[in-house]
């Protein structure tokens, strides 16, 4: 299947970033019409499925939702009851996590390389486990989110991002007089690709305490497809891949060409053939 960005956006540049700023990649699938509670051995079966897909995990922990009822009147204490139960499967440092609940499945990783390697196998393994364990009738939402942190430890002011982030997104940071006075900014851009597909882009500079208090830039791209459909593993995986390509295109719109070229080259000025965040050389 040919996967291209939504809304007729042009395909993304397929050159892999030598210095990828991606901190988190999150795929979430919400579904409905399940059997209800997960089987008691669901955690183990999920872990086995993921291991077969090449995902090494050591942590297996139960997860539980809690329902708290309280009456809004003086002197009436809240009551707590257990909601749904699920499982978290993760590696030791929690950089890769899989959560399964009767109503949603989530894959999250801090180590993204490329779609075909990092995302597709565990997502399909997770979906297969969902089909086996809870047999949902419907998928009601597919979400794919990439949290990027653009870093320059020499950046002491937000002005350092002028010329790197596209002026159309940078907004007042690029202002000649107010720009130098800005210490942080947050902007959210909502995009609608169709009635049920869209993206939420949050971005802005911030003081990065873990990078010598330099000014880093957050670029958080959350693409979603909430078209209800039958729960089919292959189809959901393809829809996620379309979101992936869309996110890649949006990512490239937000940054200037010059800065993207910098990210594409390693210390020796060499470009690496591949893509960010979603293009997959195997699909070229």
């Amino acid at each position, binding site marked *: 299947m040919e996967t291209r960005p939504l809304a007729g956006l042009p395909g993304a540049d397929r050159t892999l970033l030598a210095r990828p700023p991606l901190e988190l990649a999150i795929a979430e699938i919400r579904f409905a019409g399940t059997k209800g509670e997960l089987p008691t051995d669901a955690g183990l079966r999920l872990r086995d499925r993921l291991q077969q897909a090449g995902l090494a995990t050591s942590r297996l922990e139960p997860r539980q*939702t809690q329902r708290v009822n309280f*009456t809004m009147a003086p002197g009436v204490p809240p009551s707590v009851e257990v909601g749904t139960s699920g499982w978290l499967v993760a590696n030791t440092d929690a950089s890769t996590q899989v959560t399964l609940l009767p109503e949603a499945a989530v894959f999250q990783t801090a180590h993204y390389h490329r779609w075909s390697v990092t995302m597709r196998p565990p997502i399909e393994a997770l979906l297969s486990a969902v089909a086996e364990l809870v047999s949902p009738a419907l998928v009601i939402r597919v979400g794919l989110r990439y949290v990027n942190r653009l870093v320059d430890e020499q950046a002491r002011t937000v002005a350092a991002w002028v010329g790197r982030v596209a002026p159309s997104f940078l907004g007042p940071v690029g202002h000649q007089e107010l720009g130098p006075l800005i210490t942080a900014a947050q902007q959210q851009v909502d995009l609608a690709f169709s009635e049920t597909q869209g993206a939420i882009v949050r971005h802005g500079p911030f003081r990065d305490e873990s990078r010598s208090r330099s000014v880093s830039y957050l670029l958080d791209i959350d693409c979603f497809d909430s078209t209800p459909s039958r729960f089919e593993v292959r189809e959901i995986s393809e829809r996620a891949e379309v979101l992936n390509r869309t996110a890649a295109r949006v990512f490239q719109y937000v940054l200037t060409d010059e800065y993207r070229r910098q990210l594409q080259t390693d210390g020796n000025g060499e470009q690496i053939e591949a893509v960010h965040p979603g293009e997959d050389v195997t699909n070229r």
Partner: protein
Amino acid sequence: MTMTLERTGWVLGDEEEISSLDDALTSQHTPAREVPDATLREVLATFDATFTEPMGAMRLLWSEKFSIPVSTAGYAGGWASALRLADRVPTALVSCWAWTALRQLVVTVSPGDHSLGNLDVEADSVGDRNPGEVIEWLMSELGAGRRDICSAAGISRSASYNWTKPGGSRPRVSSEGRLWALVQFCQDLSELLDIPPREWLLADKRRYQRFLHGHFDELLESLREVIREPEESSTRTQLFQVGGDRLDSDDEPPALRRGARQVTQARPAMPAGRQRG
């Protein structure tokens, strides 16, 4: 922090529309789970807080359900917001779903038994209320007895009793005097003051005399003038002081101040010992 809000089919106001906008944003958001990097976690929480208003749906209780993915700190904050409202909203059932592992809080709100509540939930248009009920509400809201309310409204006490009785007659427009102007006055006071209107009204004898004579516009104008003055104005201090021998205790919780008030569900009558009428 994000929030989703589901519609209930009730008639919506502007605030509900805003909350529904939150819903449109957040129900489409893909929440992050555990974020190992502390700085990144904090930044994401900052962005969440910027773009959503936690517990915003509590502004109106016509909403049934919303969810709030929160950080640990935000989680506590969300509860604090909820609990702060506890003495200001009518009896209502609120259900919170806390996805502790997923850092997600889902809150379900349903209108409770308003007749048991302490708040005048504005369910109906004031024009649809029985004037007898409105008088009792004014007595409670302004801390005044029936005789004074009738005096301020320019209506006879006997007529007011007749309107209050079960099966009592509906008043003719000509006999309602300044009743609806008084309701408006009370609402305006609630909008302008940070304290219950009755505390402001009862704090000054001359002020109260003007109230008894129905000089509502004068009183409001004097209050607005003070509000326009600087905070440190001695006049302001004087006008905003509370006290007086007719000031009620804190037995009744303060009324909830909100945007467009429409009024009114009748409140229980004031305790007999405080009524003058």
